[in-house]
């Protein structure tokens, strides 16, 4: 493949959003007639890279953004998705980005309908749509409303649309997440046909099996940086997972492995929280999990393995449809996060900006928010008490700037995370579920948060610690539960586990040598 001109060459792309460096000097290239996988955990920068390529983000718009994109050797700069499409880059986005209120035919042809007498020629439009659907072996009425079809069909319609653009580059962002096995096979057949026609296909999926099945080469991103480009047949699955998840280096070693002895588990002590065959259709398979008082349980697994889904069920956001949740030996049914909080279960979301902090409020208001909600709005916390709370948490968690009146939007990611933690600590939960509390924050803040988790457990709080970073899960947890493909595949006491043994379980899903 070398010697050929890449159809896409992106060099040193940097894109920043306020407070986040989404892409940092990332380079990426694709050759005609190859399937190229783009891999990385959530927040690694995959979507940003794709949006830079498809013209949704303009690289030259921000002062800190830089880099250049070459298309078949010549420099391009797209002002919008329409321009990128005209240049032959078409995209099927992760969420089906079609219009449920219009017909299937229109969704395929919108913006380039054949015209006759100055108006849209609906017959020709339908005929063309029918041809394209036929190419995908999709037997549906092109006149039917798109919204009346299943997500899988909608996904295939999106692909039919993308194919019709006579694409040189076809980007498929998680195209298989809503497809069943047969549909995936069908999709792969189409991909191979397109590949044979010389189309370069960018494939994004968190199903590693599919990545290995379909792609020729792959590029790994982590935390907005390029890890490397590899030939799929030359990289072992284990190495790949390691490259996606990454290893924290020496800086964190200062914090030695300090696992709190679990308060129970050996004897017949009643667990603080026990899930018995707790599951939710279309979300996670039934899970058995126990958390004892004062222990840190790590929850590991790749993106999309069901970690967050489990946390959402445990904390009353989503309702389970099978099994039961037992708190202190009595079954409970959480209807809302509020009822979970009343039982002492608090959830700190992985989605810090959207589901965590309120960006436009001050540090003080963010910290007291959950406590105030817990007390009810008719029992306001006095100004004095709010100040005390804010100041004490700012000191305890070392929040910078140490100013209760600072607007949270302007804090760094790590400090925003600390504010969020402070909010949950203020309500003194018995079980704190932390979902990716250290993602996307700098190493110093990361170490502080890890230290805090240990301290909390020593003081009797239970923590369910969700993270894609295995080092920190190993460092903090007394027990590690591992999820893969939306089921809990292992629940192991953390005494002689290593990153490699965890990786083996995550990659292959079976307890092998490390079983216990």
């Amino acid at each position, binding site marked *: 493949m070398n010697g050929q001109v890449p159809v896409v060459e992106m060099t040193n792309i940097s894109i920043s959003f306020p407070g986040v460096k989404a892409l940092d000097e990332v380079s990426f290239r694709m050759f005609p007639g190859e399937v190229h996988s783009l891999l990385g955990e959530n927040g690694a920068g995959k979507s940003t890279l794709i949006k830079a390529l498809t013209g949704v983000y303009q690289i030259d718009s921000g002062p800190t953004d830089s880099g250049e994109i070459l298309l078949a050797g010549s420099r391009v700069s797209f002002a919008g998705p329409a321009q990128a499409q005209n240049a032959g880059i078409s995209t099927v986005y992760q969420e089906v*980005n079609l219009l449920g209120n219009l017909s299937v035919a229109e969704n395929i042809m919108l913006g380039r309908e054949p015209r006759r007498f100055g108006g*849209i020629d609906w017959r020709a439009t339908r005929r063309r749509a029918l041809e394209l659907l036929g190419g995908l072996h999709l037997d549906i009425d092109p006149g039917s409303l798109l*919204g009346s079809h299943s997500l899988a069909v909608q996904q295939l319609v999106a692909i039919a649309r993308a194919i019709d653009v006579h694409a040189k580059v076809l980007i498929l962002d998680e195209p298989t997440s809503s497809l069943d096995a047969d549909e995936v096979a069908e999709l792969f057949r189409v991909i191979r046909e397109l590949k044979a026609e010389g189309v370069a296909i960018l494939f994004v999926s968190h199903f590693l099996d599919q990545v290995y099945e379909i792609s020729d080469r792959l590029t790994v991103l982590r935390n907005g940086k390029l890890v490397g480009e590899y030939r799929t047949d030359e990289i072992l699955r284990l190495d790949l997972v390691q490259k996606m998840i990454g290893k924290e280096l020496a800086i964190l070693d200062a914090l030695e492995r300090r696992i709190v002895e679990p308060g129970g588990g050996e004897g017949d002590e009643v667990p603080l929280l026990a899930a018995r065959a707790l599951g939710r259709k279309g979300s996670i398979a039934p899970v058995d999990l126990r958390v004892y008082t004062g222990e840190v349980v790590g929850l590991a697994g790749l993106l999309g393995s069901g970690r967050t889904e489990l946390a959402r069920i445990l904390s009353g956001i989503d309702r389970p449809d099978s099994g039961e949740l037992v708190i202190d030996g009595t079954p409970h049914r959480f209807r809302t996060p509020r009822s979970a909080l009343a039982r002492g279960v608090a959830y700190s979301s992985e989605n810090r900006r959207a589901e965590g902090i309120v960006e436009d409020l001050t540090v003080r208001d963010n910290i007291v928010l959950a406590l105030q909600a817990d007390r009810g709005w008719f029992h306001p916390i006095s100004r004095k008490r709010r100040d005390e709370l804010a100041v004490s948490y700012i000191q305890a968690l070392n929040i910078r700037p140490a100013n209760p009146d600072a607007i949270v939007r302007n804090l760094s990611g790590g400090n925003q995370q600390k504010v969020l933690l402070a909010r949950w600590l203020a309500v003194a939960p018995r079980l704190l579920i932390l979902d990716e509390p250290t993602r996307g924050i700098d190493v110093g803040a990361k170490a502080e948060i890890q230290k805090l988790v240990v301290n909390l457990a020593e003081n009797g709080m239970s923590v369910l610690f969700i993270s894609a970073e295995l080092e920190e899960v190993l460092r903090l947890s007394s027990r590690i539960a591992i999820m893969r493909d939306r089921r809990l595949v292992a629940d192991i006491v953390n005494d002689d586990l290593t990153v490699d043994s965890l990786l083996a379980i995550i990659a292959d899903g079976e307890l092998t040598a490390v079983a216990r």
Partner: protein
Amino acid sequence: MSIDTSSAPVAGRRLFGRVSSAFTSPKYGPVLVTLVLLIAVFAIGGSRYRGFVSGPVILNLFVDNAYLIVLAVGMTFVILTGGIDLSVGAVLALSTMIAASLLQSGWSASVVIPLILVLTSVLGLLVGLMIHVFKIQPFIATLAAMFLARGLCYVISKDSISITDPVFVSLAQTRISLGGRMSITASVVIALLVVLVAFLVLHYSRLGRTVYAIGGGEQSGMLMGLPVARTKVLVYVISGFCSGLAGVLFTFYTLSGYSLTAVGTELDAIAAVVIGGTLLTGGYGFVLGSVLGVLVLGTIQTIITFEGTLSSWWTRIFIGGLLLVFIVLQKVLTARRR
């Protein structure tokens, strides 16, 4: 949706299936319900009053509501994108004032009418740009335009100005005979032309399909490479133009300009569009549905006029009730399909 059985009543059942599927579709359902409603209202009127279901009554429905049809057409474009235009009533009043005062000072009708259409289109353009460039809620932006237009009416004159310009008066009063006692005005012809053009634009042009696309999902439309920004601005220009034209037709109807005229008409237009089956959240609806909506409102008004003893405010009460029913109906139909 379709049931396949190989016995005799297949055809009947399939027909029933198709009919019931059309009625419960978020696309056609509300419009079909409106059509049934219009027929029902007419039947009620016909059973109570002699001569209710007659050519002149039906034609008068169009004559009396020509301006509202035009307003509703413009409003349909806006609501299809998921927006709203509260300024149409005030812009209509402003048009009547501009027409009356300019004609009074001796301008020719052939200059005044195009001028009004240009001015109201420009006002629509400004509103559209405000919404697009500054990301202002359509509700707020058009509310501001409403106050601006209404205020300008008073700047022109506080009193009613009557129109005596001979060309204008003859345009207004010419009746086109359809044989017998039946005749229509030029306004009706213009209104129906507007409906025809709007129908063609919405269904046979990319602009029209982009309007639907924006209502279905602005983000998706943008990612599909459609000219979302341009279209979003353009629907307010169309609504502005329609308001101006409706103002001219209204002036034909009243032959005067008055600052306080058409207060609340924007709400009639919105009501007609919603009753006509256009979803307030955008994406579903037909311009012909909006015409049906106007006719339903007009028929209710006619019944109340025929009744004689009822206060005209009963029209509003009926419209209010109908609106409520239709909004709930839309919710149910769209919720079922999600």
